[in-house]
């Protein structure tokens, strides 16, 4: 069962500075959707609004057509179906296994299933040998891979990726992109990936949207988006004429 993700009229401001000014977005179930835009335009803010980290001033977020519930236990259940990987993720003090198994523990999964799934997830990102290593000693690439394994080990139905390969070398980027694709193929999850790497968007996503000036300026399938954008601003961005 995969879920659709819908955002309507979302507004968010910080200390009077309006960041999101009426964002509308529709991600179909099982779709891989890229959200692009210049730095600081509010892509991360949008993701944080979706994942209950921020409360918007106005607007709705809908999961499978239903608005996010208010009661904490229901909200918790919904939250547990969403996974997020951020840029520069924070790993908990402890081993890699501890980090990756965290989401499973939280959901009450016990041994032997707990250890099995943890090791499988670590293997998927090529870190099974480091399962017992301390998380504090990892390189950026390794940390990002752990964060990814940590997010998908619980099989979220919606996966939010926030520039999650931004600081990595090409080898790590490729590995993580393959992991995303593999996960999507296995589970059919709905994936919303924020990136300012246009090539990445082209490689992984099927549809893309351009966030600019607090709103979604254009939404298209990936091919059209990059070769023949409708909006002038999208075109400027895609051609690299817009400063970051």
């Amino acid at each position, binding site marked *: 069962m995969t879920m659709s993700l819908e955002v309507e009229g979302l507004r968010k401001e910080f200390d009077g500075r309006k960041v999101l000014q009426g964002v509308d977005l529709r991600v179909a179930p099982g779709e891989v959707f890229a959200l692009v835009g210049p730095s600081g335009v509010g892509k991360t803010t949008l993701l944080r609004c979706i994942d209950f980290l921020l409360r918007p001033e106005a607007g709705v977020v809908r999961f499978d057509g239903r608005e996010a519930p208010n009661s904490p236990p229901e909200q918790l259940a919904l*939250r*547990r179906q*969403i996974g997020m990987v951020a840029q520069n993720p*924070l790993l*908990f*003090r*402890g081993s890699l296994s501890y980090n990756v198994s965290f989401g499973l523990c*939280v959901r009450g999964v016990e041994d032997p299933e707990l250890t099995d799934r943890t090791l499988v997830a670590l293997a998927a990102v090529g870190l099974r040998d480091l399962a017992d290593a301390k998380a*504090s000693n990892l390189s950026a690439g390794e940390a990002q891979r752990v964060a990814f394994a940590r997010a998908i080990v*619980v099989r979220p139905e919606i996966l939010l990726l926030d520039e999650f390969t931004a600081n990595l070398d090409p080898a790590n980027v490729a590995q993580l992109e393959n992991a995303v694709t593999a996960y999507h193929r296995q589970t059919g999850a709905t994936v919303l990936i924020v990136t300012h790497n246009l090539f990445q968007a082209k490689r992984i996503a099927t549809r893309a949207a351009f966030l600019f000036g607090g709103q979604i300026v254009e939404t298209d399938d990936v091919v059209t988006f990059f070769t023949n954008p409708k909006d002038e601003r999208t075109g400027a961005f895609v051609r690299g004429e817009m400063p970051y």
Partner: protein
Amino acid sequence: MLTVAGDIVGITLLSLLVCGTSTLIATLIAIPLGVTLGLREVGGQRLLRNILFTLYGLPPVLAGLLVFLLLSRSGPLGGLGLLFTPLGMVFAQVVVVTPIILGITMSVVATVERRVKETAFVLGADRWQLSVTVVRQAAAGILTAVMVGFGRAISEVGAVFIVGGHIEGQTQVLTTTIITDISQAAYGHAVALGVILLVIAAVVYSLLYRLQERTMP
């Protein structure tokens, strides 16, 4: 030596019992409270912090006096019969030690990287699980809080003297005995007890420190 307190073993054991129990009780009160308060983002914090910081400076003798008036037969809790008993001394020390552990825990938890809480939240932790995770990440600082709290308890003399009464065979602890030794000029005995105090502190701290080392990243 006239009236120098007998039974060093008994006195030492009572010190350990009173200080250990009061530190444990204070820990069980202060850590959950400190974590809950430290995790709260909203204001109303300032008034609480001011009260707490004032309580840091609460002189143990004053706490002792207040507990004395509370526990006296003529006082509101007189029916409990706790004045001049070890349990009364524990009560007094809990009053002194809890604000210390609470304050340090609150500070440590509040300054745990916000991202720790967010990461646990995003990974699906409920309130209890989030608290446990924060405590685990802040474990080193929380252990410091406990160490400082125990230090206060074991070195404290005013409150346990006032509330305990330094009764031979009943409520004599190391610190109060040092005081009466001095008033009787039994300085050698007093120093010996002081050495025992230091040894206790050293042993307890080394245990807690070892625990703390295991919590470092």
